């Protein structure tokens, strides 16, 4: 089930917009594709990130994957639980597996993201 209250990117990241901040992570589809996640590298607090640019790395047993920022802004918080337990992303990609919180540079950028329905259709298209 794709949570209805989130926005989604083509690279399988999600954003939960809360006023002028957003919490971001990767989708269930992404964690399934990656397999068991063994390491997560996130940017430092205070770092600025740009929409669609690489801002984090997630490693699974077999490979490392770039994660793209769904929105631009400054990192205000990162999920420290991921340091010792990155597998939380596999278990709970939309809740306990959140990656960071961003203070948004431009709330209008959310228009570049898909709704839950749009993301579900997008996934169906990938499966073809």
């Amino acid at each position: 089930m794709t949570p209805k209250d989130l926005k989604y990117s083509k690279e399988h990241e999600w954003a939960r917009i809360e006023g002028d901040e957003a919490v971001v992570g990767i989708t269930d589809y992404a964690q399934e594709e990656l397999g068991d996640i063994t390491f997560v590298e996130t940017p430092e607090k205070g770092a600025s990130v740009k929409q669609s640019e690489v801002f984090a790395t997630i490693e699974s047993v077999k490979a490392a994957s770039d994660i793209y920022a769904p929105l631009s802004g400054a990192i205000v918080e990162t999920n420290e639980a991921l340091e010792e337990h990155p597998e939380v992303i596999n278990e709970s990609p939309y809740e306990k597996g959140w990656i960071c919180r961003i203070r948004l540079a431009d709330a209008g950028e959310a228009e570049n993201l898909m709704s839950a329905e749009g993301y579900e259709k997008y996934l169906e298209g990938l499966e073809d």
Partner: protein
Amino acid sequence: MTAFGGWHMPLQYKGILTEHLHTRAKAGLFDVSHMGELLVQGPAALGELDRLLTCRLDDLQPGRCRYGFLLREDGGILDDLIVFRTGAESWMLCVNAATTGRDARWVAEHLEGAAFRDASAETAKLDLQGPLADAVMRDLMPQAVGLERFHFREGSIRGIDVLASRTGYTGEPGFELFFSAEAAEALWDLLIELPDVQPAGLGARDTLRLEKGYPLYGSDIDEEHNPIEAGLERFVCREKDFIGRDALPAAGATRRVLTGFVCSGRRSARAHYRIYAADSPREADVSGPGPKAAGGGPVGQVTSGTFSPSLKRAIGLGYVDRAFAEDGRAIVLRGGGAAVRATITSPPFVG
């Protein structure tokens, strides 16, 4: 599923970590039917195989098997394998999947009096590995229980003829089961039904073998390396003549040697990452651009790297300058935009 050595193979079933941990705790079942089985037969077989394999064969009794290498004339490794003496004049070589065809041609071309048959296509192989493997076999093939390592027995499981050897690639007690491919689904289904047995794929097979420091052909050993460089001279019997023997360097006389490392955290170093001394004069800052060649160049290269589910940190193997390859030496592994701190550690890393 993933492509491997010309086969369509399961990388994982439920997940690499869970399959790995289950194999260390209970019993994992690996479908490795893609591997090759080459049969050599006749009174000339012993002498002719002895000239092809690095391991000693004349003291191998029926029911015993041994690990060794097929070498090129220049000492480069064509394959690593286990040779089984199935009778006074009959032998089976279990070889890697990707090299089966080449190995078959090499062996066949070099035999004269002995008969050769490539039985790979009609032979299935399942590896049952883990502390509970013996308990599983007690009900199915009791004569296999209590076999010593590198011993095997031929018998049957529920009417299926099986050669069960006390060998494996995980470091756990367990068995490699060789039998007719026609019975593959039946034996798989039978074993999977057992409550303590879970299927495990190539992903877990790799993390399990790497925790024990076992080399993987094509990654840690290949034609460009000889067994001395790979630190595996104990599987080479120089007292007999075999192809490649005279090209081999003396023990300990290679510039580099295959050794292991344990990383400081969870981040993995991958194959082809360069290995630098952590205390080299220019290695001041791990996140910097890295030392220049003169005086601070690489001391080695990674050949295999992964996350160890048992240690919960990254591990790997690589070729390192012998002078540098001491346990405890601090190194930095660079590649793919990453810099990973690690410590040289002789395997096994676990157990």
